[in-house]
């Protein structure tokens, strides 16, 4: 087997008394789409935060393409090819959808221009192509604040994809999206990712979404990876049902 694209070894971090990660080992293979599931507050987002440099693990190492990126600044990690999207979309509220995405396109291909328009021909057409891929072309000139939650999520992911990362980390891409829309949103996203052959990790609470779109599932529970494997097997595992999905159903009903 070839070397994994991302490899976490012995990651540990605690907030006060809560051990969000307590010796996490996790590999992500090039080209795969991995889902991370687990109870609320288990540390799934913390994993994304540590991988993208927002938090520094208290112990352990993160290797990306064989290079140790543990504790590097977010900017340095982005430049190495890891991008993320957010559970609560982080958009530039005063700007239009296409400007939001174009800023990211520009960040990749020449940001330090002071006297040529952000939306010059190449940047604008690339941003537009991305918006077409995620089905937002018609909203290109809408202000970020005018969008519904589904469109905000898609814009947020399109912004991350604009960086053309080798690895994309998505934090709950379907949370807040109307349940009628969630498969449409995921079809679009996963279609775009597969078309670009981007490796992706997404944190998710919706088991239907996980089963449909993930190549592999890792279960994060009590600061450790409980089990990882193909969705069908993992989601049928009694321990997983008890630890994660039982809790999940209770939350969903609450």
């Amino acid at each position: 087997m070839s070397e994994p694209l991302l490899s976490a070894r012995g990651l540990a971090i605690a907030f006060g008394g809560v051990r969000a990660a307590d010796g996490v080992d996790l590999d992500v293979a090039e080209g795969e789409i991995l889902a991370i599931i687990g109870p609320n507050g288990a540390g799934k987002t913390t994993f994304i935060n540590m991988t993208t440099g927002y938090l520094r693990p208290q112990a352990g190492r993160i290797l990306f393409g064989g290079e140790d990126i543990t504790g590097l600044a977010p900017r340095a990690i982005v430049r190495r090819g890891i991008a993320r999207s957010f559970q609560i979309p982080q958009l530039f509220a005063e700007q239009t959808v296409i400007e939001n995405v174009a800023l990211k396109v520009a960040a990749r291909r020449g940001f330090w221009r002071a006297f040529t328009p952000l939306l010059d021909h190449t940047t604008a057409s690339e941003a537009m192509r991305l918006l077409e891929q995620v089905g937002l072309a018609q909203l290109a000139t809408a202000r970020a604040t005018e969008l519904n939650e589904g469109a905000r999520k898609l814009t947020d992911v399109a912004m991350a994809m604009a960086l053309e990362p080798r690895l994309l980390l998505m934090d709950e891409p379907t949370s807040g999206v109307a349940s009628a829309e969630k498969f449409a949103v995921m079809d679009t996203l996963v279609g775009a990712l597969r078309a670009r052959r981007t490796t992706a990790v997404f944190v998710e609470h919706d088991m239907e979404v996980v089963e449909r779109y993930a190549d592999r599932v890792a279960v994060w529970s009590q600061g450790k990876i409980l089990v990882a494997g193909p969705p069908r097997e993992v989601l049928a595992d009694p321990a997983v049902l008890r630890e994660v999905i039982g809790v999940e159903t209770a939350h969903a009903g609450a």
Partner: protein
Amino acid sequence: MMPRATIVALLGTVGILAAAALAPWLKFVLTVALAKGLAVMGILLLLRAGQVSFGHALYLSIGAYTVAFLRPAVPDLLVLLPLAAAVALGVGLVIGLFVARYRDIFFGMLNLAFSMVFHSLLEKLYAITKGTDGIRVFRPTVAGFALERLPYEWAVLGLALLLALGLGWLAARFLVSPLGQALVAIKTRETRLEFAGVSARRVLLVAYAASAALGGLAGALLACTTLHVTPHLAYWTQSGELVFIAILGGGGSILGPYLGSVVYELVRVYAAAALPDAWQMVLGAVLLGIILFASRGLWGLYEDLVMRGWRRA
């Protein structure tokens, strides 16, 4: 078709030249207004990022004192102005490295602190700066010509107009460039820029340095207009005035600072003549009215009144 802003800028230019020709004493007022407009344009760049500097009089005074100190050695206006801008740019880069790390009230107050330190230096170092007496600036030559008072005043006004037009055009391009757009992004979601691999600090530093250079240029023009510089140029009320004009003019267009600045100077002159003891009250009332009823400033008011009419036509 020419963009509307260009048409308005050209009409404004004609208006200023006509006013200066019809009422010669207005030349001085309008030159001062244009100079301050340049500095306010720098304030506008920072406002785009949601940052307000209460200390940009620092750069006004650096520009003005550069002219005052160098005038004996460098006699020409066309050399003095870029030199003053360059000195202000240099100081802006150094101070910017520090203040670009801070936001909001801290950003505003740190700028204020730097300007007040400089103000007291100008006052106390009498041997160098002649303290509150200030330094007289002898009329510089213009492109090698030693001009009489009247043609000199026209030359400075013309130069101020050209600078306002040229730098305004550049600034308008800057605002829609990736860097200009990133300023707006700093205001709303700075961390997301970092997650794009872009240093928000560096973006702000670029805008800050540009605003410092504009402030220096403005100060140099003021020195060449009033022909006398005093520490008062660095006083915090001067910084406040720049922010005042920025809000009065409105941040929606690069023309806002100039519109605000011309109106400000005219109101000030007329109010001071009509109500010598209460002209500040008139200015305060004008600003209060703007904030309450036209939060996008005079430019916003103009857009509402005129652009809507154009669209209907």
